[in-house]
């Protein structure tokens, strides 16, 4: 610079320039220092924050395993359904909300409620974001179980719906409706308590979990495992999905969900349907059919029932009330979850106990004079049988014969054998059940004020008094009688399978063999004798079930007519229904074919009246369906559980009879 050319008064400024430069360098140095802190020292932290700004995890729903019957028919499957979500912190309540409410067909009340909740979450999230810019804002379910039609509308109007998303959530569906309710159980939404109790990550709000039956017992196999996928969201909450966008995702990009395992039941749903048809004339009861030689359950039917589909999306208060107020107790599985007086169906076991204890022989005679007095109590018989041997006492179901057997044998001797046959204990079926009761002298001492009376043994001998059994227990005991003494645990689940990808569910993970609980050692002459007697019940002209026998079926069995504890007015039951609730329970326990027993059927008609007239015909119809229709139709099919069987087997007329 040419100082000579400057006017001298510029000199006032001259000392300032170096200082100014110094200030500039110093302040720019501060900026560079801050850049070093942000870009070099803090790079990892900031790069992480930058990633978490845009990369978000979205949960991938898993699919719940299917429940199939033994032939592959789906009893519990899935149907399409979607949940609609909103990100309240980024949601436009003025523009988007009216549209969304319209598309979802929200009523004014629902709309008001949901809006209140959304605004609350929005306020909370924005407050949290103020405190911590890294706070993750939430999304909120606006509507669950939305159908394909609504989602179609949402998809076409996507542009107008920022901060709205929808996720496919398959919903449980039970095609067989109320037919399978008691065995399958149902699922419904996880509660807060469930979420708190479950290990983290296993279930999420909105998940549905098994509440009863197989759905509950096999929950851990059926549920599957959630997965996740990383997605790119911009600052406005919109999802970005182009190839360039996805390049920002770091590995691993997703964890695929593990689908739940399929459960194959031993049930044959066609046989259950047959039971339902056979029960058409009765109000309440249950039916058990199982394989004599394996203990595998072929059918469990309990009436009345409910449609489990109603439970999945939550019952309305009205529906719940109707179910709970029904005096016939539709929620109770009458084959397992309640125990009843077995009545005369217990007589074969009383007889076997007496024979084994040598208190009688197969030839012992007692006399029936219609009334039998023991102590001060008068016991009655249904008929007047005169002097009777054991065979006829079974065939005619003479109570007085068995009172005397009970008197001469003693309650504990009888109870010991009953317990060997599995009465009074849970069977181990895996779903909810009650143990029933086989009273002993000790039990009476405990429960009847310390005084045991010998008369109790008389009632126990004919399956009254305090003896209570479940139909499944009875069926297993008759199976053990029919197969020579093998008491099985009832098997409901045949196998666990990995879900089929291409419709071929051939990935058997676990195949459950029959479970023998114990072998009951009884002299063959006794069991042979007893089976003949049971054959007589159906096939002797004087047998209690003779009139119900079916041509072409060689059935043996025992009827039962169990008196119930009488109730009077004021017990809470509608007085007009008292006659019904005081009526006897009707039982029939039978198996076929007699020569080589393969299936046991126990029919229990609650308050059905006489067993021969009311319960036996139902059992016969079911046996008929089994031997004449179902079994021939299945004959051509492989027995292995792994192979997917064709569903429409009924049309298979070429199958050998």
């Amino acid at each position, binding site marked *: 610079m040419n100082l000579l050319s400057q006017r001298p008064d510029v000199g006032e400024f001259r000392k300032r320039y170096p200082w100014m430069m110094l200030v500039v360098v110093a302040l*720019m140095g501060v900026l560079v220092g801050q850049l070093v802190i942000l870009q070099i020292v803090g790079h990892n932290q900031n790069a992480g924050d930058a990633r978490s700004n*845009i990369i978000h995890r979205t949960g991938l729903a898993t699919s719940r395993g299917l429940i199939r019957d033994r032939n592959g028919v789906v009893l519990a499957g899935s149907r399409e359904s979607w949940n609609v979500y909103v990100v309240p912190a980024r949601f436009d309540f003025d523009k988007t909300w009216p549209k969304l409410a319209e598309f979802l067909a929200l009523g004014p009340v629902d709309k008001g409620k949901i809006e209140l909740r959304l605004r609350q979450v929005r306020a909370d999230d924005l407050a949290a974001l103020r405190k911590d810019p890294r706070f993750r804002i939430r999304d909120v379910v606006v509507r669950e179980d939305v159908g394909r039609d609504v989602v179609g509308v949402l998809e076409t109007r996507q542009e107008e719906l920022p901060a709205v998303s929808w996720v496919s959530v398959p919903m449980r569906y039970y095609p067989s409706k109320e037919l399978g309710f008691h065995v399958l159980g149902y699922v419904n939404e996880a509660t807060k308590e469930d979420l708190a109790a479950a290990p983290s990550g296993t279930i999420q709000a909105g998940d549905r979990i098994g509440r009863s039956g197989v759905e509950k017992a096999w929950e851990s196999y059926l549920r599957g495992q959630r997965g996740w996928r990383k997605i790119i969201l911009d600052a406005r909450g919109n999802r970005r999905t182009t190839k360039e966008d996805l390049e920002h995702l770091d590995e691993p990009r997703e964890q695929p969900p593990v689908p739940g395992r399929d459960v194959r039941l031993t049930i044959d749903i066609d046989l259950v349907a047959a039971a339902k048809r056979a029960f058409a004339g009765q109000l309440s009861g249950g039916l058990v059919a199982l394989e004599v030689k394996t203990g595998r359950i072929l059918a469990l039917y309990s009436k009345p029932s409910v449609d489990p589909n109603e439970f999945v999306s939550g019952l309305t208060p009205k529906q719940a009330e109707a179910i709970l107020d029904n005096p016939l107790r539709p929620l109770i599985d009458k084959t397992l979850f309640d125990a009843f007086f077995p009545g005369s169906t217990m007589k074969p076991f009383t007889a076997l106990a007496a024979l084994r204890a040598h208190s009688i022989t197969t030839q012992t005679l007692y006399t029936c004079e219609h009334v039998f007095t023991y102590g001060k109590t008068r016991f009655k018989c249904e008929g007047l049988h005169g002097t009777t041997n054991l065979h006829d006492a079974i065939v005619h179901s003479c109570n007085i014969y068995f009172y005397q057997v009970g008197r001469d044998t003693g309650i504990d001797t009888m109870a010991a054998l009953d317990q060997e046959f599995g009465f009074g204990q849970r069977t181990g079926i895996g779903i909810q059940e009650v143990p029933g009761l086989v009273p002993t002298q000790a039990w009476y001492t405990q429960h009847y004020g310390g005084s045991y009376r010998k008369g109790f043994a008389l009632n126990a001998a004919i399956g009254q008094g305090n003896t209570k059994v479940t139909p499944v227990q009875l069926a297993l005991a008759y199976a053990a009688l029919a197969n020579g003494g093998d008491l099985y645990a009832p098997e409901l689940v045949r196998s666990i399978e990995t879900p089929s990808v291409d419709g071929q569910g051939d990935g058997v993970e676990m195949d459950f063999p029959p479970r023998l609980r114990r072998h009951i050692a009884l002299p063959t002459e006794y069991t042979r004798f007893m089976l003949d007697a049971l054959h007589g019940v159906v096939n002797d002209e004087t047998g209690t079930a003779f009139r119900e026998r079916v041509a072409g079926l060689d059935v043996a069995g025992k009827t039962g007519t169990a008196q119930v504890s009488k109730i009077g007015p004021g017990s809470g039951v509608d007085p007009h229904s008292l006659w019904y609730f005081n009526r006897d329970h009707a039982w029939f326990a039978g198996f076929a074919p007699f020569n080589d027993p393969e299936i046991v059927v126990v029919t229990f008609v609650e308050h059905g009246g006489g067993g021969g007239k009311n319960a036996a015909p139902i059992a016969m119809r079911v046996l008929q369906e089994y031997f004449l229709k179902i079994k021939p139709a299945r004959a051509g099919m492989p027995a292995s559980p792994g192979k997917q069987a064709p569903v429409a087997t009924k049309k298979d007329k070429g199958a050998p009879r």
Partner: protein
Amino acid sequence: MSPHVGLRSRARDNIDWPLLVVVSLIALIGVVNLYSATSVARAGIADLYVTQIYWLVAGGVAATFVASVDYRHFERLAYFIYGGGILLLLLVFILGRDIHGAARWIDIGGKDRGFRFQPSEFMKIILAISLAKYLHDDPKLPVGPGGGGRTLKDLIGPTIIAGIPFTLVAKQPDLGTGLILLGIFVSIMALAKIRWQSLLTLVGVAVPTGVFAWFYLLHDYQKRRFISFINPDLDIRGANWHAHNARVAIGDGGLFGAGYLKGTQNHYLFLPEQQTDFPFPVFAEEWGFVGALLLVCLYAFLVIWGIRIAASARDRFGAALAIGVTAMIFWHAFFNIGMVTGVLPVVGVTLPLFSYGGSSVTTILIGIGLLMNVSMRRNVVG
């Protein structure tokens, strides 16, 4: 030979090439960065970089014109220009349009087709000219052994000159421009020798004034931003969220950056006003520390070069004008980068030649024209 002829021929020879090169370089990088910043598919702003080029050309023409007129004409007309500027600021209150709750613009030629014009931008240059004029006309030569210097009484004039536009701008309200006006005022006055007793008194007055301003002049949103800087925990989603994401974007760049057009935070809309207030984070994320350092160095060079031009100016007006223009550029750059890096609170200040905006770009370029003017005429004897 008339002085005018001599000036013209000599001035062409004396074109300040380093100034021209560094300004062109910043403008070029600015346009390139603007393309990236607005490339996010947001309809309406995607071709802002083209408009920016138009503005740069228009500003360049204006700068050439400003540079070619001897700055002493500006000195003569300084107070007329000042009066005109104040009038325009007053017009804003009558005609101004609201943008983000602040009236800063005057529409010319209709709302959509015409352009909007921001008088407060030009006021920055006008203030530099006016203060330079004042110092030019009021040479207090060092007197006595203590060196003499200005008393508070001598500061009343320039304070009024700066105070009127400052008050008008702060009322708009436009805190950013107010700060820049203050920066220009302080920087120019720093040239003058002021008695240290007077300085002490000044501090004694400034502190109560600040308190007064806080309670009566600042708007709530301005206070909030200030508070959010002092205590980030109290912030709303607004200022602090933006500042946070700006720092994240810069830091995400690392040493070498994500690469041009590959910055994620801009691309996914985490940088608000990315074309005006936040172009630096866009640049820093894509070009990393290396790019950001280069840019800071370019600004530092430009500013130091400006001070050097002032030092070599042939008269007091030229020196003070050069410092005023240089101060404008410096405080713009420092406030903008300081705010996005988190050194300073978030105030709406643009990055010179980097931010989009017609008034901003033309103002800066006119300032550069004045700098060039002073630089070219440093050796002219007249």
